[in-house]
């Protein structure tokens, strides 16, 4: 880790490969949803990266690493609890969609094509390709927060455009 703090890329790669299974194990034990665990895995690595200057070489690595992983898992747990409070489960699904499907699809495609490229990519990666936020952000070369903002703006724009 001391070499990582000095900017040694190979040492960093070896370290991340070494700690990966431990981080995955901790997160899988703490998060019931595998998709959450995978997102948390990536967030843990990003948090580790941001906090790497705080590691003291004279101390063991494991407590430092586990504190970061457990904190990320706790954040996910809190987020899930908040989301569960907001969601309203419906007993029956509506029989018909609000819009006729054929017309809607064409309008959606037109609206999607008219979006700025960054917003379109965010929406496609996140909603159509079904990637997690962290994966989509990594693929788009942006932060998870920025990607969510782009996807949200795209959704709002499309909703406005396809409304009759």
């Amino acid at each position, binding site marked *: 880790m001391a070499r990582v703090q000095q900017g040694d890329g190979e040492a960093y790669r070896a370290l*991340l490969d070494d700690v990966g299974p431990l981080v*995955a194990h901790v997160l899988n034990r703490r998060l019931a949803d595998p998709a959450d665990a995978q997102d948390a895995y990536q967030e843990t690595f990003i948090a580790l990266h941001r906090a790497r*200057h705080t590691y003291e070489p004279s101390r063991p690595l494991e407590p430092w*690493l586990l504190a970061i992983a457990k904190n990320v898992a706790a954040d996910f747990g809190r987020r899930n609890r908040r989301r569960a409070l907001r969601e309203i489960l419906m007993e029956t699904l509506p029989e018909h969609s609000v819009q006729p499907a054929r017309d809607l699809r064409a309008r959606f495609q037109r609206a999607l094509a008219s979006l700025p490229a960054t917003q379109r990519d965010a929406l496609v990666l996140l909603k159509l390709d079904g990637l997690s936020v962290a994966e989509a952000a990594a693929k788009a070369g942006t932060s998870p927060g920025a990607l969510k903002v782009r996807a949200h703006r795209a959704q709002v724009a499309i909703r406005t455009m396809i409304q009759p």
Partner: protein
Amino acid sequence: MSSADQHRPLSHDALVERLVADAHPVRRLWPPGRRMGVWTAVAGGIAGTFAARNHLPTAGVRLSEPLFAAQIAMLVAAACWCAWLTFRASVPGREPRAPAIVTAILLVGSSVLLALGLAPETLADPRAFVQMGLTCSGVTLGLASIPWIAGLVALRRGAPVGPRLGAALAGAAALLVATAAMRTACPLGDARWHWMTWHLLPIAVGAVVSTALGPPFIRAWRQRHSPVRFNEA
């Protein structure tokens, strides 16, 4: 595929590549002990200078009185302990656990208990009580401001996993050291209700305010100064 690989999410390699690409040298955070030393020099310097210039004529003699000396000693001890926990809180894995927090609460609680040993004054003139009190609290806040900001800066320079707790401790430490200095200078320091209302209560209020305002301040800084640079939307 090895068993270790099977446990990793599929995106591990891509993630590692991205992080390794950003692996530049970083300035290592000073150990909590050294940071504590700097904070103590700053906070102690401000409080000491204030006390040396503004102490009551009797303050030197009164240091031999057990209650007076114990009050100052307890406030200083509580301030040092809270500051120490603040610096620990900025390092993952070294954040204060329950016994350390309980110790901090006991130290602050002891200061309150010692204040109960002061003689209660009669509150004949509420207006004077409030006016004098607001002046004392204002001076305390002014004395605490630099150590308070220094504590929050120290936190945001690190990576606190519990920013609320860290911010509360930073606020408490700064106000405790300022209150210790005020004990030598406040002309109503021996009046129980004045001391408890305008000197001890603001420590609790300050800790709560710091808990609320500290984390956004820490987060904002960390986002702006994050070593990972992403493209913004």
